[in-house]
């Protein structure tokens, strides 16, 4: 086919343009493929981690036995081949079994988990055996046969026990078979109030502790068959969760969680990372699209004369357009192939960087889907993105070739918006595909659309508003300089033509500046500012009279104790003077049972705090009016709620809550919702009262001891257990270190991706600026012919480039704050931070880069003989 051949010839004969175009497309698509591969690996890693944390794909739990009817109903919903297990959990004292007959044996509060032999469905509880060496024994199967226990190290330290010895839980004695080394289900930032001990579920009843009224969590776990639990299909577990929840709609005391919804803060942050990478991928594609479109526009404009010539020698208008169409297809395909090759080369390095975070078992490989998508986008997306440009050709008249003073490339067509529709549809489709949600697709489309409108409007206004500046310079003889005046005049008078450049530069600036802002938002979530005060031990159940002695105890050992937070047990009775028990009417069983279940479901640990701490941020509402409740100024005490707790319970700002604190009703108004920074590891509570309200209520304290070395911690636990036997001590050092290490890796990944995006954006920007500068070379030649000096030409060209770049970058920067805010609200839990520095640097870089490239190309144009430049233009 002649047009294909001509397109090919054109590519071969214009190697610089072809290479430039391919590189631009490759840059964007490399970003897309790399980020998609990473996103997929992170999804896979997250999926695996979330299953390990829950220990199943889906779990149903309750503080009561799950009834036969409920079990039958749930079991009927899961596919054939699903593995099912049960578990019971409660908190109880565990006593050492010693030879000594003097007094009561030492005992510690422990979190007991009675599990089935198949535990855990996902992940592995690593432990050391009686010999102190890592063991691979099927411990949970052995627990089915014998009364064996697997305990956290704290139990051994605090009761001075060794594996092989025995402990007594209720009426049953268990032999300690080993020490837990790592437990995937504790990969959480929220810690249990006591160290964990595993026993066989068969032996749970033998303890005598499982009785009516005991606060025991019963959990029924489901592990879906392999084809359902593929990492790529978390939606199956979510769909099943929805079905379970539909059944349990009237049974609010049943808790249904799938592995995706049950993941804790770690899961939340990994989900954020996935969303963030999705955004980066889209930004890379859009930037590539912008750059590609700009190049196509410039290329087609330069080729319109050729197309007219072709028509004059007998080519049909439509056929002539095929040449450019084929060129776009061939170059786009080349770009996609290059992108796949570059991504294949980059991924091993990225895998190395992210190995500690993703784990060595996780593959970071190019996804088949994204390669196909990249090839389609490169091959078909390129000509589709160029459709608005092709529409220009409709207005072309080959007859202008006979007119010396008319340029066939200067044509106008108002139907470009119609031609842009397929590109808009593609962006929407990609955004929805990346985020797996049409809502996110619409959000991204709306953001981009609004940004373009704002840029077009502000560009028109700003560039036209240069008139007074131009007049002022003209009047001021001291500043009067014709190159500057000419730059201003040209910018003002060609604002229509410059608007495309303005919008393009501005959109690049907006997207590029938004990325580091989002990065700053996420890294502020991940990075702890209180690293020096990281906790090593959490101390629960500190009695008021123990507060001072405990502080003295710690200080005498040169250990720093953080603030002790009061913990007051209370029941939520009324919301806005409406008894909330009414909503629990459907709980099966007697009225007493209902009442009991309601109590369990509505009992919270309240705390008292005057101001938000460094690890907290206001998500909605305002800070407490005063640190201490002032009856003369405030009608009700003020309450602060943790944001997601409020979302879960449906409590809103200004709601009046009434708590039953040991029989005393205490009312308060919700004045703020606060976000708790995940990586702070400081004690935090769902409900916090103003001071001076429940200060006298019966309370315990939660304390922290800053991290110390292993030997000190071990010794400290033993001494604490001896001196303060009622205090429950949980060693959180290992968990904190693990989570911090993960969060630092995630922060590194986020920063690396932001840099990648910045580099890609700057690459695209280079392409755009080069094209713009080339367009100015004709004028440069004329000015040179007219006798302008090197400096004057420079001032004129740079003046225009700098004016457009500055205003476009400034508008883009302003828009980027809006983009970052919208994305942080809709995707990142409203964790917006004003990251001015992070945003301004890329915007300044854009201006600097534009000026630098313009300088370089102008220099080249000035070195070229004017005659050659003018001839090239003809």
């Amino acid at each position, binding site marked *: 086919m002649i047009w294909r051949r001509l397109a090919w010839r*054109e590519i071969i004969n214009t190697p610089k343009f072809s290479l430039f175009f391919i590189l631009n497309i490759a840059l964007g698509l490399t970003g897309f493929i790399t980020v998609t591969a990473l996103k997929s690996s992170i999804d896979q890693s997250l999926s695996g981690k979330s299953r390990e944390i829950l220990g199943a794909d889906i779990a149903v739990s309750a503080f009561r036995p799950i009834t036969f009817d409920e079990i039958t109903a749930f079991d009927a919903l899961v596919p054939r081949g699903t593995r099912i297990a049960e578990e019971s959990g409660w908190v109880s004292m565990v006593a050492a079994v010693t030879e000594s007959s003097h007094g009561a044996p030492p005992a510690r509060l422990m979190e007991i988990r009675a599990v089935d032999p198949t535990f855990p469905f996902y992940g592995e509880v690593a432990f050391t055996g009686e010999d102190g060496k890592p063991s691979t024994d099927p411990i949970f199967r052995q627990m089915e046969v014998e009364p064996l226990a697997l305990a956290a190290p704290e139990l051994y330290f605090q009761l001075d026990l060794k594996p092989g010895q025995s402990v007594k839980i209720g009426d049953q004695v268990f032999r300690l078979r080993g020490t837990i080394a790592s437990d995937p289900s504790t990969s959480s930032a929220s810690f249990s109030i006591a160290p964990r001990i595993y026993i066989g579920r068969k032996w749970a009843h033998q303890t005598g502790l499982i009785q009516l009224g005991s606060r025991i969590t019963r959990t029924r776990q489901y592990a879906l068959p392999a084809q359902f639990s593929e990492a790529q299909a978390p939606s199956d577990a979510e769909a099943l969760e929805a079905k379970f929840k539909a059944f349990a709609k009237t049974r609010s005391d049943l808790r249904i969680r799938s592995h995706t919804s049950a993941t804790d803060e770690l899961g939340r942050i990994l989900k954020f990372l996935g969303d963030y990478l999705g955004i980066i991928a889209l930004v890379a594609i859009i930037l590539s699209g912008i750059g590609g479109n700009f190049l196509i526009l410039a290329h087609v404009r330069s080729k319109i004369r050729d197309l007219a010539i072709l028509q004059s*020698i*007998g080519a049909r208008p439509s056929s002539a357009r095929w040449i450019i169409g084929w060129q776009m297809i061939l170059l786009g395909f080349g770009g996609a192939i290059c992108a796949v090759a570059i991504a294949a080369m980059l991924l091993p390095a990225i895998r190395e960087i992210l190995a500690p975070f993703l784990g060595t078992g996780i593959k970071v490989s190019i996804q088949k889907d994204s390669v196909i998508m990249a090839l389609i986008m490169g091959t078909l997306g390129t000509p589709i993105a160029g459709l608005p440009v092709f529409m220009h050709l409709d207005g072309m008249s080959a007859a202008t070739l006979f007119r010396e003073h008319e340029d066939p490339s200067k044509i106008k067509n108002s139907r470009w918006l119609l031609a842009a529709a397929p590109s808009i549809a593609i962006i929407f489709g990609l955004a929805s595909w990346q985020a797996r949600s049409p809502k996110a697709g619409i959000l991204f489309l709306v953001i981009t659309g609004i940004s373009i409108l704002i840029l077009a409007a502000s560009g028109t206004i700003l560039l036209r508003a240069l008139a007074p500046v131009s007049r002022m310079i003209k009047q001021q003889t001291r500043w009067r300089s014709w190159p500057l005046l000419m730059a201003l005049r040209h910018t003002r008078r060609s604002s229509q033509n410059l608007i495309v450049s303005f919008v393009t530069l501005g959109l690049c600036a907006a997207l590029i500046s938004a990325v580091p802002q989002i990065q700053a938002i996420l890294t502020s979530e991940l990075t702890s500012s209180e690293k020096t005060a990281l906790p090593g031990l959490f101390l629960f159940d500190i009695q008021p009279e123990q507060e001072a002695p405990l502080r003295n105890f710690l200080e005498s050992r040169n250990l720093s104790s953080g603030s002790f937070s009061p913990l007051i047990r209370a029941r939520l009775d009324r919301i806005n003077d409406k008894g909330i028990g009414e909503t629990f009417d459907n709980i099966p069983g007697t009225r007493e049972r209902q009442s009991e279940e309601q109590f369990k479901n509505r009992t919270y640990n309240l705390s008292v705090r005057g101001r938000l701490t460094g690890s907290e941020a206001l998500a909605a509402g305002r800070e407490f009016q005063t640190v201490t409740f002032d009856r003369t100024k405030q009608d009700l005490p003020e309450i602060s709620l943790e944001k997601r707790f409020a979302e879960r319970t449906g409590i809103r700002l200004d709601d009046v809550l009434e708590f039953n604190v040991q029989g005393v009703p205490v009312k308060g108004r919700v004045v703020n919702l606060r976000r708790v920074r995940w990586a702070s590891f400081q004690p935090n509570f769902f409900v916090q009262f103003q001071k001076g309200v429940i200060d006298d209520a019966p309370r315990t304290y939660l304390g922290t001891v800053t991290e110390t070395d292993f030997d000190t911690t071990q010794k400290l636990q033993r001494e604490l257990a001896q001196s303060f036997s009622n205090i429950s001590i949980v060693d959180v050092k290992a968990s904190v270190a693990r989570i911090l290490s993960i969060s630092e890796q995630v922060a590194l990944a986020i920063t690396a991706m932001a840099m990648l995006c910045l580099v890609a954006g700057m690459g695209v920007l280079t392409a755009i600026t080069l094209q713009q500068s080339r367009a100015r070379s004709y004028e440069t030649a004329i000015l040179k012919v007219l006798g302008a000096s090197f400096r004057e030409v420079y001032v004129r060209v740079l003046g225009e480039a700098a004016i457009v770049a500055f205003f476009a970058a400034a508008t883009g920067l302003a828009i980027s704050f809006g983009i970052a805010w919208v994305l942080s609200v809709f995707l990142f839990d409203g964790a917006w931070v004003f990251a001015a520095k992070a945003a301004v640097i890329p915007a300044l870089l854009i201006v600097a880069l534009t000026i630098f490239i313009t300088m370089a190309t102008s220099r080249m144009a000035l070195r070229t003989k004017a005659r050659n430049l003018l001839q090239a233009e003809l």
Partner: protein
Amino acid sequence: MSNPQSPVISVAKVGKSYSRSGQKVSVLADLNFEALSAQTIAITGPSGSGKSTLLGLLAGLDQPDQGTITMDGIDITHMSQADLALFRAKTVGIVFQQFHLLQTLTALENVSLPLEIAGNKSAEAAALSRLEAVGLGSRSSHLPSQLSGGESQRVAIARALVVRPKILLADEPSGNLDTKTGERVTDLLFDLVRKEGTTLILVTHNEELAKRCDHRYQLRDGQLHRVP
């Protein structure tokens, strides 16, 4: 098809106007003109008189507001763009003042292009022979940027004549060339046209060049006036 006695080009009552700055400017009005086969006709006239507009209409690159244009016995006035393209490919050759060669194609590729568009299988051989005929056989692989003005125009002539068109439209073929080169190029043009019996419509300011044609017309007030 035409015989030597019937007109190859027939322009009847053609009118064309443009809108400039919201005002309608009449360029051609009630224009009539005929050319017989193998005739060479010169059209002169001051700048802005409508010479280029007339050439555009004859080439089928533009359409008249009124009147009819018949070329080689075919009324091209109401032809579709596709048919016009086919018509041009077979019947009309055009030589521009500014050469209008495709800058990314070699001389040979430029010349062979009309044949390729027409679906000719041996386009390259025919193009090379045509290029040799204009004395540029040795420059076939050169790009337009590597050719002088005279050479470029010779390539343009070769391209225009490679399909052996019945009609050749030439717009100031020597306008961008120095006198000597211009003369050489026009000699070549007349030589080839006469050899192949092509009807030539030559638009020029150059009276000497115009005198070399069989007939001369001056375009004035939108109409053609025969110059004796």
